[in-house]
């Protein structure tokens, strides 16, 4: 019994060992042909580099991005303040960099938490079906239908001390940061839950899952060993797209004064006093929003490119 595949594999013994990697290298090759996706990857790398260079640049310029200096509000760009200063006389460029760290971090953390919720609920609904499934899907439909922004504002305005947290914690910067991460995660899991449910429904009927069950495998084993690894690619794409949405949520909440609390900068809260900026320093009204815009559009193109690379049916563009 010598099939063609066996012969080929015998001729190239190394081929088999790297089979798993070869799937990814194929995808990488397809991804590289997606111009938007490649460009976004480069842009995102540069953005991260930009945000991470905040501290070194601060040392180099000998500035302190947190100290306000009311004598030098809205200074024009200069050798020390490359993009000028903001309404508190702080260096705009450094605040953009630090703000970016916060915005990106919120984006990633809320996506991981919300995505975790979505993956878990989607897996449970898809795998067990029945009453649990219809309950969870009702819940998902309900959350999708809600006007999320007003709800987020209410959640962001809650008094943490009334929830049993110490007053000290409730007013700390960490609480402000984690509050925003958690509430965004709490509302933005529905897309992933639906996707994971649909993918789980398809995978759980495959014979290898049935075979594992026939051998006595429990639900947890089956879900983690067979279902999850086989639906990981659509999940990666969905997570990517979620990062973009979360960054937008964070920015609008911070902009409205319900997100990251100053003096900690975030791209959203740097536009807090936008009405004033529009007339006095229009450039400052542009920078933070432009960075959000570029980040989110790059993230979305990245997701699109990955979708293209992961989908065997997609033609070359």
């Amino acid at each position, binding site marked *: 019994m010598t099939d063609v595949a066996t012969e080929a594999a015998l001729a190239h013994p190394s081929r088999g060992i790297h089979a798993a990697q070869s799937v990814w290298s194929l995808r990488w090759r397809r991804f590289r042909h997606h111009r*938007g996706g490649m460009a976004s990857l480069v842009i995102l790398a540069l953005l991260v580099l930009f945000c991470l260079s905040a501290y070194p640049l601060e040392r180099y310029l000998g500035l302190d991005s947190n100290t306000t200096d009311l004598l030098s509000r809205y200074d024009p760009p200069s050798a020390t303040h490359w993009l000028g200063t903001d309404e508190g006389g702080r260096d705009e460029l450094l605040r953009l960099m630090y703000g970016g760290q916060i915005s990106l971090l919120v984006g990633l953390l809320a996506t991981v938490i919300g995505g975790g919720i979505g993956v878990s609920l989607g897996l449970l609904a898809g795998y067990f079906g029945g009453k649990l499934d219809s309950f969870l899907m009702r819940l998902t439909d*309900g959350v*999708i*239908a*809600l*006007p*999320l*922004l*007003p*709800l987020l*504002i*209410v*959640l962001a*305005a*809650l*008094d943490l001390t*009334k*929830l049993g947290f110490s007053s000290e914690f409730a007013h700390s910067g960490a609480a402000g940061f984690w509050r925003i991460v958690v509430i965004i995660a709490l509302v933005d899991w529905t897309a992933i839950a639906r996707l994971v449910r649909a993918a789980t429904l398809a995978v759980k009927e495959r014979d290898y899952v049935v075979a594992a069950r026939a051998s006595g495998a429990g639900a947890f084993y089956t879900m983690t060993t067979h279902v999850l690894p086989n639906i990981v690619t659509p999940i990666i794409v969905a997570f990517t797209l979620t990062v*973009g949405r979360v960054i*937008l949520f964070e*920015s*609008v909440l911070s*902009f*409205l*004064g319900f997100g990251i609390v100053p003096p900690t900068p975030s791209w*959203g809260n740097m*536009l807090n006093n*936008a009405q004033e900026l*529009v*007339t006095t320093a*229009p450039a400052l*009204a*542009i920078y*933070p*929003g*432009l960075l*959000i*815009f570029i980040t*989110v*559009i790059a*993230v*979305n*193109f990245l997701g*699109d490119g990955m979708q293209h690379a992961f989908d065997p049916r997609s033609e070359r*563009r």
Partner: protein
Amino acid sequence: MFGFVLRRIGQTLVVLLIMSFIIYGLIGLMPGDPIDIMAASMPGVTPEVVAKLKAIYGLDQPLMLRYWRWLMAALQGDLGFSRTHSQPVLEVLTPALWQTCKLMISSFVLSVVAALILGIVSALRPGGLVDSVVSLFAFAGISVPVFWLALVLILTFAVALHWLPASGMSNVGDGGFMDQVRHLTLPVLTLMLANTGQFTRYVRAAMIETLRMDFVRTAWAKGADAWRVVIVHGLRNALIPVVTIMALSFGTLFSGALVTETMFAQQGMGKMIYDSILSNDFNLALSGLLFATLITLLSNLAADLAYGWLDPRISLG
């Protein structure tokens, strides 16, 4: 059919009831409480008086009981009194609701029209130049922070060009129809641009799918006039799900409306909710949030019913 409609209306009412309880509970967790706020503005009020007042207003009662009382009153049309407006809530709500409807409906209609045109044109030649440009535009639409888009439009059309007013709903002493239109132009434009991107993606995807179908290909092959094929066969089949999805995104639209109204100082529901939360006007915030929920639930209901009505393949048994 009749049974389906009844069931969906029933579901909507249940969701509304659940949401009213959740929102009621959340509002209670916001900082401060009405009596404390009242006491703070009146020096000389002793703690004993405050406690007595709380007892009179039933604020020392358990949550379920307070909710029940509120619900019973609300069902009889008594939504309480707005602290900041010094008016019954309903009288504050009604004009705000009307203002928001003007903004949302006009921008929704414009978005749908623009999305249909752009989506169809790009679906005719996927991957072509037009498609690439439209795709870029659509990605920009879903990636742009709405508040920043509003800022850019204000900077351009109000500050730099002086074509349109940057805020408010009418000029003092004018208030004629054209004046209102001028004031509404920028908000509508903002909301429309923000939504057209996502809508265009829906239309494009649905049109490509439909144009690939056999019966459309047959029509092409038979030499039918190209536009006739697109309009008669393509659009009719692609439109039903697309319009449904658009109607389902009313929740997102409302979130956009909140930001837009805040940016342009339009006294609509969104800005009213935002202001009432900022100023601890609990009655107004509660009712505003409920109305926002009701609007989105009703639009979802309408979308569902329309979908079932229009698509013969869905049996509503």
